[in-house]
């Protein structure tokens, strides 16, 4: 039986990991660049479909700045049903996501899929994402208000139901 302290630490780790997962969407949707960058380890990998693989804070910062944010464009990156496995200072998380966007006539789901993440406990105690691989499972082809259409990629074509 784990000690009381170990059980509390595990709950704290799980909550800290969730905080980082939530920080991704808040930071990206509302243009909180420093907060968003702080979600990542210095050598982190982010593989947005249809774009070059990003690795490291410089590339992530460029990716962030190329993305739309409120108040210019309103969207929501929503993370759903995160399933966590913690292994010491490393965690794997499988979660679902949906992105909500503004379209003529009202809000719609622009895309859904899942995130496959790895997080690590950093020296300062914060859990940060070391890799994020989004699997896009469905997308809308038309561009939301104020934003570009989903970039073409084999995964995007597969998400549309066509051949990759």
């Amino acid at each position: 039986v784990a000690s009381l302290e170990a059980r509390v630490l595990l709950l704290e780790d799980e909550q800290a990991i969730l905080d980082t997962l939530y920080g991704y969407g808040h930071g990206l949707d509302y243009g909180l660049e420093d907060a968003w960058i702080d979600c990542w380890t210095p050598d982190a990998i982010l593989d947005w479909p249809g774009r070059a693989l990003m690795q490291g804070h410089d590339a992530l910062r460029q990716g962030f700045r190329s993305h739309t944010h409120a108040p210019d464009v309103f969207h929501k990156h929503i993370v759903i049903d995160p399933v966590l496995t913690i292994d010491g200072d490393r965690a794997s998380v499988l979660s679902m996501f949906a992105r909500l966007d503004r379209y003529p006539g009202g809000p719609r789901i622009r895309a859904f899929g899942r995130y496959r993440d790895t997080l690590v406990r950093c020296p300062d105690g914060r859990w940060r994402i070391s890799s994020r691989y989004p699997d896009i499972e469905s997308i809308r082809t038309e561009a939301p208000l104020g934003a570009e259409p989903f970039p073409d990629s084999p995964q995007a074509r597969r998400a549309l139901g066509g051949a990759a």
Partner: protein
Amino acid sequence: MSGLSIDERLRRLEDERDILQTLYLYGHSLDDGREDVFMDCWTPDAALLWPDRAPIRGHAALRDAFRAHSHAPLAWHNGEPARPGQGLARMSSALRLRLRAPPFTGTSHAVK
């Protein structure tokens, strides 16, 4: 929370966490076609009442219903190096038993 010890209060938080993880695994496994993970969400005599269908009761019936349901292709994968044998089933087991299992890769299936 009067009347409960620290240990009991902590156990309640852990129970709530574990319940939520089982709820989440229902959707993940049904969507992704992980039959063993889906089955492991249920007690042996569990009942599932999907609308407009006869009540589903027990593991054999639940397994039949799972197989009759649609699932994602097992090839939603965009290039992360796969580690065969480390899948969601392993993750679920580790979670349930509170083992510190090796990390999973989410999809350990080859791209079709």
